[in-house]
């Protein structure tokens, strides 16, 4: 279960990883410990996202903006009475793939750094690009269906 440490942001792991690993080795593994570690991982990412900047924009603000754009798109089409099942499916696929693409990109960015995150040489970047492509196709399908 020590692999939980690898879920922490890279910079955090570099600074506290060895200490935490050492501490976990001295403790018996319990359910409480698992839950507590998961909370710690979320907390560490929260700190990381609040502090990190990409192109001068704070990461938390960028994520908030992306979220708001998605909510606006959903709200705009939610009230339409003519929305059929296929449109809804296309929209759901688009939203899920966009969320996955952004999440994978962020994880990749923290894990490998800026340069590698924008390359397509790694598995994660290919996955992120793939989901972004799926998002593009789904959103086009959605817009075509709604019109």
């Amino acid at each position, binding site marked *: 279960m020590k692999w939980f440490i690898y879920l922490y942001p890279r910079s*955090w792991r570099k600074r*506290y990883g*060895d*200490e*935490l*690993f*050492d*501490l*976990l080795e*001295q*403790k018996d593994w319990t359910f*409480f*410990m698992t*839950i*507590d*570690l*998961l*909370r*710690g*991982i979320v*907390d*560490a990412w929260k*700190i990381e996202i609040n502090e990190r900047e990409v192109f001068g924009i704070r990461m938390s603000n960028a994520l908030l903006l992306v979220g708001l754009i998605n909510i606006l798109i959903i709200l705009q089409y939610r009230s339409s009475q003519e929305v059929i099942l296929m449109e809804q499916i296309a929209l759901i696929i688009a939203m899920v793939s966009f969320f996955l693409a952004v999440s994978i990109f962020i994880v990749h960015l923290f894990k490998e750094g800026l340069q590698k995150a924008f390359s397509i040489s790694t598995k994660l970047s290919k996955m992120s690009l793939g989901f972004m492509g799926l998002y593009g196709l789904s959103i086009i399908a959605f817009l075509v269906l709604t019109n």
Partner: protein
Amino acid sequence: MKKDRFSEPSLFILISLAEKDCHGYAIMEDIEKNYSIKLGAGTLYGAITRLEKAGYIQVLESDDRKKPYRLTDAGREYLSNQIKDIQAITTLGAKRLGLI
């Protein structure tokens, strides 16, 4: 300047370090012994991260994987102020309950 507010575990960590320099595991043991609170590793290192970023504790160089932490002057001042605040609250509470 905005006054930082830290959680209970952060205060326990500062109190542990007020006496002597300790590494993570020793802090955890001290808290468990004195307050009967089992602090998880995730919570402990979350609090340590915040306290270190705030400049209230500092890590001491060590060849060992266990790195000891030390309370800084700013940390000592912060802890003193926090304890005075807590003391004022408990005194008021005790007075109103007729305990003193």
